[in-house]
């Protein structure tokens, strides 16, 4: 696949986004696009602003200038709790699981936005609230089973090995059936074999789902991405296929001092 830039109809994009935090210009006129059905990578040295792009896309931060566009609609003030309903799901660096909830409850929470019953029905223990809850519970069990970890449903995250926690986190982000997944360093802290499996998993989601991937492990990025954007010091310095990016002198210069593993 080859993308002509600028992209004509990306599913998710930032348009001329700039933001200054604590007097530092973190993002400067950043326009990146994520075409439908692709795995798109967002890479760059530490401090390039990758996570800030995610934070803006998920409504944690509001850009000073520019905006996010999703599914053709311009999003001015993004409400974080609306994301899953819109079809955007994000994982966090690390695992971001709730330590006091079981693995199953963590996954259920990811789908709870779609449960219709209200506060009153819930408080009074109305039967329909109950059945919605059961539906969610069995759906969460299925999702855990898909990830091969149904047996740890009732365990707390603290009792689980790190790679398993990561799977729970991904299961939670998938249960809401998102159109777009924003993955923030999913390969952090996992073994090479787990990473290969993660790569296959991400690939298997497309083209039904679209993925924007922030990742330090270049081998994973180069393997799974259809398109890569490179940020450095808050600016887009390159974009293109993995091969184009790999050989781009500006990218190599940005990574000078940091090893690019092939």
């Amino acid at each position, binding site marked *: 696949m080859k993308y002509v830039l600028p992209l004509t109809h990306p599913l998710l994009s930032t348009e001329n986004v700039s933001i200054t935090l604590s007097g530092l210009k973190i993002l400067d006129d950043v326009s990146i696009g994520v075409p439908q059905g692709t795995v798109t990578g967002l890479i760059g040295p530490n401090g390039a602003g990758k996570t800030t792009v995610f934070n803006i896309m998920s409504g944690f931060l509001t850009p000073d200038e520019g905006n996010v566009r999703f599914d053709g609609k311009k999003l001015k003030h993004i409400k974080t709790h609306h994301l899953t309903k819109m079809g955007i799901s994000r994982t966090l660096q690390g695992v971001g699981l709730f330590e006091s909830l079981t693995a199953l409850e963590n996954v259920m929470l990811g789908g709870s*936005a779609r449960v219709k019953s209200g506060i009153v029905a819930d408080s009074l223990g109305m039967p329909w609230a109950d059945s919605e809850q059961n539906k969610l519970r069995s759906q969460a069990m299925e999702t855990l089973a898909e990830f091969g970890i149904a047996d740890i449903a009732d365990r707390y995250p603290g009792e689980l090995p790190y790679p398993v926690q990561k799977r729970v986190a991904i299961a939670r982000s998938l249960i809401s059936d998102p159109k777009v997944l924003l993955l923030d360093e999913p390969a952090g802290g996992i073994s090479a074999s787990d990473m290969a499996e993660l790569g296959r998993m991400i690939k298997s989601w497309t083209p039904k789902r679209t993925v924007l991937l922030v990742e330090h492990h270049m081998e994973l990025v180069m393997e799974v991405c259809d398109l890569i954007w490179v940020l450095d010091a808050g600016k887009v310095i390159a974009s293109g296929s993995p091969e184009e990016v790999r050989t781009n002198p500006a990218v190599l210069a940005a990574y000078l001092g940091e090893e690019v593993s092939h």
Partner: protein
Amino acid sequence: MTNFIDYLLGGFSSGAVIALMAIALVLVWRSTRMVNFAQVGQAMFTTYIALTIQQQTGNWLLALVVAIAAGVVLGVIVFFLVIRPVKNSDSTGAIIATFGVLIALQAGAGMIWGGDPEGFVPPVDNSGLEIGGRIWPFSLYDILVLVVTAALVIGLTLLFTKTALGLSMRASAFNPEVARLSGVRVNRMLITGWAIAGGVGAVGGILIAPVSTISPTSFDILLVFAFTAAVIGGLDSLVGAVTFGIGTGLIISLISGYSDSSNAPVVALILLALNLLLKPDGVFSHHGSRSV
């Protein structure tokens, strides 16, 4: 020995009420990570409302229902008027603001209902039951108090463990950002926590009123005991609040029986101090998530 059993029996229903107030404190702590010192003031206010209704209609159940509704509304009002604006800048400020609310509620109640202690007629007989030719310090009303408390605790436990709302509330308390990413309307959950706490506090107030009389400041001592129970229980544990609420009730009853009731608050504070010295995270706290 007979004395001991009598004192112990006498402590259960006051322990249940302490447990309810402790639960209210825990619910607020869980949602906004702060102690609401106005909780007993809110309960006092709603109990006055209940008293008025009972005096007008003689219907205790109606008084209870209205008091719960008023407690819920008051919880939401306190959250919006005081806690939210202050909390945004500084949580210590918010805790001090709850003291302000307490004083305002007490002054308001004094203006509306006067400062004199008033009696609250219990819905069922409050004199000791006679079983086996002996009068025990345990009444039909004590049974009612325990039944209502147990029902409330079971209801809350089911709410928190079996419903999507409960799940969302627990998630919001633990990590609001991640909860938002999962589609939880966190602010709504925080308000719900305050609202439920207000309702639970209202039940506690109406249950203790027949035993203690009611005046604008008559519940203040309840705050000392409930706070002790909640902190020893770990501040975020319902089980802890119930266990140590009832435990505190029993200890107070024993101390009042063997010495003098005025010693009870001192002992409660000594227990609190020991707890903070020996096990500062509380006995039932998860993962040491408390920062005092």
